């Protein structure tokens, strides 16, 4: 069974009397352990697609199976828990909470994991231990107690990646992860994604930049709300 299965996903936004169809029937399957990039120019609907993939937005019609679960049939609170368990987000604007340290930012998703899952996933290591390990691996060992404002862009994004990994989710979902980074940091971040992929993680990167997309194993091109390749 595929990890992610989208069937004929349509999304229509209403702007006054005007209906704008952003996604015009998308079919997409992502297997476990794949590294996929979704590429398209701005306005192509790729961000909307990524929010739907991340269970943050609901399509107007279509079907979405995540690990066999019919996401669109679940109530909002269960979908929220699905996000905590299955998806690790990495955003273009990092979204680090300014009053929490690097370590606490990484620990934040643990507090939203259901108790039973928390016990299961942190049976061997405490969340703190795991956070320190992840941050060490990402080269932030010396920055554990820094505030986000004291970090460079690359460091911020690496913190965000650690946060995305803390709950051991099935999928890493990155939305323009290099959009605010210089080319050196961009390379670094993509290298991390490749490493995660080689360790068996499923990684989906959404970008408008073909150079970035090329790092992936499979490229899905989107134009005008349709998958073109």
């Amino acid at each position: 069974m595929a990890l992610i299965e989208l069937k004929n996903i349509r999304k229509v936004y209403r702007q006054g009397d005007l209906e704008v169809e952003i996604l015009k029937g998308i079919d997409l399957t992502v297997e476990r352990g794949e590294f996929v990039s979704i590429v398209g120019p701005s306005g192509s609907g790729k961000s909307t697609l990524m929010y739907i993939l991340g269970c943050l937005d609901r399509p107007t019609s279509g079907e979405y199976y995540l690990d066999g679960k019919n996401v669109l049939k679940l109530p909002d609170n269960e979908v929220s828990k699905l996000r905590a368990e299955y998806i690790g987000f990495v955003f273009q604007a990092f979204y680090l909470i300014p009053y929490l340290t690097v370590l606490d930012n990484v620990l934040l998703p643990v507090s939203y994991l259901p108790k039973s899952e928390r016990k299961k996933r942190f049976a061997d290591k405490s969340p703190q231990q795991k956070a320190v390990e992840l941050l060490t691996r990402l080269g932030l060992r010396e920055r554990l107690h820094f505030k986000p404002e004291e970090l460079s862009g690359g460091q911020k994004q690496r913190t965000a990646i650690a946060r995305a990994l803390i709950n051991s989710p099935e999928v890493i979902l990155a939305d323009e992860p290099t959009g605010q980074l210089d080319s050196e940091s961009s390379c670094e971040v993509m290298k991390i994604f490749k490493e995660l992929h080689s360790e068996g993680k499923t990684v989906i990167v959404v970008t408008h930049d073909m150079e970035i997309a090329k790092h992936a194993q499979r490229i899905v091109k989107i134009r005008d709300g349709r998958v073109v390749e």
Partner: protein
Amino acid sequence: MRGFFLKDLFLSLLHNKLRTLFALLGVLFGVVSLVLIVAAIEGSSLLANRVIEKLGPDSVLIVSGSIKKGPRSGFLNLTLEDVREIGKLEGIFALTYGVVKPMTISDISTSKFTTVFGVGENWLLSWNYRIEAGRGFTDSDFKDLRKVAIVGHDVADFFWPGESPIGKIILIGKVPFKVVGLYAKKGKTPNGHNLDDRVFIPFPVFDRLVEKTYGHISIIRFRVFNMAEYNQIVKETRQILLKHHKPDEFMIITPVVVKKFLSMLSATLAFFLGIASTTALVVGGFVLSSIFYINIYVRQWEIGLRRALGATKREILKRFLYEAIVISLLASFLGNVLGYFAIKFVLPLLNIPVVYPVEAFLLANLFTLGVCLFAVYFPARKASSFEPVSALRRKA
């Protein structure tokens, strides 16, 4: 993870310092005034009880003057004739009367301003003065018009510090009186009159030698044996007095009247403080609510992020309500401290005994918690209903 939740919560409150401060101040004044108002009301009723206690719950006090003009011991509307007629009533005891004159008394070298009472038989008994040294008045003091005086401690200590006043001579007006008794300390009345700065002399002597009153007096007092007859006796007393006096020439003071008068004062006080404290708390609630409304929009991306990380709507709602609880607890704590000092320093200015009503503190804290939760509930619900996607797009 509970520790993490609290850490996250407090750091967030600390990060939004100004918001937390204003929200706090808004509620704080409400708490303080609420505590103060209840203390003031309780203090006033305590005052009323103390006055009644001093007066004696079984006593009837008749003074010259009226409520409208104000009872004045300076008026001499009552007469010895009234006393004789009231004396015919059954079921009363300790009937006495007197006149009051604030004046200067002196011995050879010094003089002092004090209050001189020309009193009837039974005065000391009726008002519970206890003789500490020397003797009380005797019948022959009255019959033979002896120039004798009984003084309080403040008078004795002023003229003869460290000495017994018994046998000493003082001049009241230009007449020398011999001190025959000293009464035990009584302290102050609830209204602040010093009970130990007084000189008592027999009324007939006062009338002849100090100031001619021609049998007119300002105070009559007696006590009632059986409280069941109290109201009937007060009624009969009024009828007797109305035979010779107009209704506005005298006033019968009973514990009921005292209570009515004092509670009228405290009701006025309670009304104004009540308006103030309610307004303060309601305004505080509005302030809190608007501050949170602004805050959730500023922090919209943060709410979107938490939703993306797996927070349910309930968890978002809960989080803001917890922020409200922390603010309310802080406001309560500071409000209690400030309220304590307000009671300590404001109530004495209003001549109200200082009381610290524990229930009022508890009530104020609960009420504050209610106001805070109510005020924050609406913005919190709004925050929890943000669409994660559009919330995330609003990065500050």
